[in-house]
């Protein structure tokens, strides 16, 4: 069997987009029926049993979804907890713990909960837990990284055990999207949190898997939740995350079958995996992880739009993608191609100063008073070797445009702090990650009054578009607003996004029914469906 056939066989076990869309037309079906229809795909009916062993590169720092901004926490917590809404395999918001919901006016949202849903410690989920979840995150003492999001809620009422009514302070378009994002709004049990203080070392949710054991830096063991509310699911007896930081070691473990699933951001990993019998490569479902290059605009030369534009046309985005990602990447804005139509769909059409043009760069520099070019710096994190490589390619490209760049590598914590606070010298570049809503991608980093405005620029027109995008509830109007915003940012070159990429997933071919959503973090997969996975043994 050659590689292509192998890949095909595995992909058959998954729900492809078309199969799903067919199913999605039949909106009267309940979700659990959905899942079963979709999975009656080739490969026979799902079999119960077995433990899926995942090779993970980083240990979760803790397991509390309300307290950790680390993707490696979500990777585990999204299987332990559930939310009011969730995303379907086609990336649409559908009810989860909520049976149904209504939006009245532009600030009131009423959710009716499923009845009889049990937490892992054996108590029924009620509206009080939902209220507690959001009040806890908004409470300053919780120190939740999601606090600022939920301050939008003015009040939460619980008219009865199974009804929750949220009232927001003002219209807030991303509200439902955040409710369907596992780490932002995982519903937690009041009694367990009050008893343990937090959920960093312990867990009790309503999700398909229950926490059995968490040994930091070593292993996280989840076992099947027999009382999960979608009957018959999950198929697996459990999921185990082995923490193996070294990629070579992780691939060796994949070869021996010690692990059955892992991921890689290395575009050459396909070559390495070729010689492994029974291992398939799943390419990323759309490019969701964009690089962000910021300019220190508090001083010359980058406070001059012409200099920033010179950098924008001085880099050759397509060449970077070819050289660094072997072509596996796409042109992007801050909102990545996988979120199109909010973002741009992977080409430079309509985006000003995206076409490579070294002559124009020199001309722009001369107009800005730098006829002899400029000398500047670009900070890159060695923790992400591909970012460093992209920086090297850009240095060569920019040299031809008269911009002489010194690359500086720094330790991650140091580099990130300087990036966020605009204390680097010239430019700084890091990989940034997918967000559940266009608003989350851009609001805090573009807004003039934000403490983390990247590069320290002020633009009232940008602020105006940001507020419009946040309060406009009509999807098509929002799309137009965010596209206009992206064009404006590209025109002013407030920051650059040299390319978007994504991690590939590697799995054994006896792993069936696996689905992931676009938007998984580079180097760590979250947003994946393990409850539908089964092992063909």
């Amino acid at each position, binding site marked *: 069997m050659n590689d292509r056939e192998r890949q095909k066989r595995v992909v058959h076990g998954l729900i492809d987009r078309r199969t799903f869309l067919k199913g999605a037309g039949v909106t009267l079906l309940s979700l659990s029926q959905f899942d079963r229809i979709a999975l009656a795909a080739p490969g026979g009916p799902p079999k119960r049993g077995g433990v899926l062993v995942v090779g993970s590169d980083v240990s979760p720092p803790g397991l509390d979804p309300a307290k950790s901004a680390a993707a490696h926490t979500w990777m585990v917590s999204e299987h332990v907890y559930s939310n009011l809404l969730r995303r379907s395999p086609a990336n649409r918001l559908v009810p989860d713990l909520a049976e149904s919901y209504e939006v009245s006016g532009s600030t009131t949202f009423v959710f009716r909960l499923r009845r009889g849903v049990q937490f892992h410690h054996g108590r029924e989920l009620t509206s009080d837990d939902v209220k507690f979840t959001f009040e806890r995150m908004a409470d300053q003492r919780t120190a939740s990284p999601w606090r600022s999001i939920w301050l939008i809620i003015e009040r939460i009422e619980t008219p009865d055990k199974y009804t929750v009514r949220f009232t927001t302070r003002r219209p807030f378009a991303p509200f439902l999207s955040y409710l369907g994002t596992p780490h932002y709004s995982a519903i937690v049990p009041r009694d367990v949190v009050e008893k343990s203080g937090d959920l960093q070392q312990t867990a009790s949710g309503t999700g398909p898997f229950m926490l059995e054991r968490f040994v930091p830096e070593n292993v996280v063991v989840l076992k099947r939740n027999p009382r999960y509310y979608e009957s018959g699911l999950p198929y697996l007896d459990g999921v185990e995350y082995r923490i193996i930081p070294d990629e*070579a*070691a992780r691939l060796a473990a994949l070869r021996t079958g010690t692990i059955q699933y892992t991921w890689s951001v290395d575009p050459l990993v396909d070559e390495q995996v070729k010689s492994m019998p029974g291992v398939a490569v799943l390419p990323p479902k759309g490019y969701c992880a964009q690089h962000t290059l910021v300019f220190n605009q508090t001083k010359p030369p980058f406070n001059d739009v012409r200099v920033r534009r010179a950098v924008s046309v001085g880099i050759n985005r397509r060449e970077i993608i070819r050289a660094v990602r072997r072509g596996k990447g796409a042109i992007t804005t801050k909102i990545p191609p996988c979120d199109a139509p909010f973002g741009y769909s992977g080409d430079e059409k309509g985006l000003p100063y995206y076409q490579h043009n070294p002559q124009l760069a020199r001309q722009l520099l001369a107009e800005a008073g730098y006829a002899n070019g400029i000398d500047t710096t670009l900070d890159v994190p060695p923790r992400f070797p591909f970012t460093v490589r992209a920086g090297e390619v850009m240095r060569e490209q920019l040299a031809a445009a008269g911009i002489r760049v010194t690359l500086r590598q720094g330790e991650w914590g140091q580099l990130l702090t300087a990036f966020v606070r605009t204390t680097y010298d010239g430019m700084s570049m890091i990989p940034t990650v997918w967000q559940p809503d266009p608003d989350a991608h851009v609001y*805090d980093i573009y807004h003039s009054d934000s403490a983390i405005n990247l590069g320290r620029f002020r633009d009232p027109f940008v602020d105006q578009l940001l507020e419009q995008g946040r309060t406009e509830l009509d999807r098509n109007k929002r799309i137009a607003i965010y596209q206009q915003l992206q064009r404006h940012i590209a025109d002013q070159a407030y920051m650059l996004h040299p390319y978007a990429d994504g991690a590939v997933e590697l799995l054994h071919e006896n792993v069936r029914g696996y689905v992931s959503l676009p938007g998984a973090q580079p180097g760590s997969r979250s947003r994946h469906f393990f409850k539908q996975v089964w092992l063909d043994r």
Partner: protein
Amino acid sequence: MRAYVVKRLLLLVPTLLGISMVSFAIIHLIPGDLVTVLLGITASQNEQNREAIIQALHLDRPLAVQYLHWLGAVLRGNLGRSLVHGAPVAQEIARAYPVTVQLTVMSMVTATLLGIPLGVFSVTGRGRGLEAVIRVGSLLFISAPAFFLGTVLIVLGARYAPGITTLGYVSFFAAPWRSIGQMLPAALALGAAISAILLRYTRASMLEVLSADYVRTARAKGLAERRVALRHALANALIPVIAASGIQFVALIGGAVIVEEVFALPGIGRLVVNAIYQRDYTVIQGAILFLTANAVLINLVIDLLYRYVDPRISYG
């Protein structure tokens, strides 16, 4: 003797105090801060969230106050909690330390079993060919970094012996044999380099001792060469080797981090390095304090061991 031990133990107090102050100052001097790293590159990176975290973790107090607060807790036997995930620091150390001790002991045993006999053999062995092989081999092991050897072992193991698990950690107390077996490749990777060092020490020391007067006397008495080498020469030649082993042992406890990383062993080296990446100040402080005390105590034991193997040494 007892006075000596007591004196050494008392010296531990100013040592730990000094180290804790220096490390506290240094880790807070590293550019980059805990709150930014905690919030990551998400929509969460804003002032409201920063404030909440700073308040919750008391990071708004002056550094000196933070230090005294920490010191006061430590004196009452409380190393505090991780700033990142809230677990008690003592529990984190207690989890990581046995892994590292096991790895260190297994590496040292491997190194000793390989290094000392080969060192003796490289002096007494006949046939210059074999001797050259040992010398070149030892040079190779000293020069090849342990992570390289480790990766080679893992990759070869995966290809040719896929049934053997070489990654991750199983507690020695839960399953002793499995635990030892699983850690063996890591111990080999680390032990190989150290065995080469021990080999060189043993060889140099043996060459010196074999030209000593008492060795000539022993030979003159007509003892077999084997007996001369092992009983008379080796016993004396081992003194500098023990010193070298001690240094390696202490170095391994905190310094096996790369091999721990490659073999996915949750040891104390990784605990410290990850804590530094995340600016988890309490974990770094606690672990440094612990490792310092550990190093001082191990050195004390080695000094006492010296006295045992070499009666000429006395500690007044």
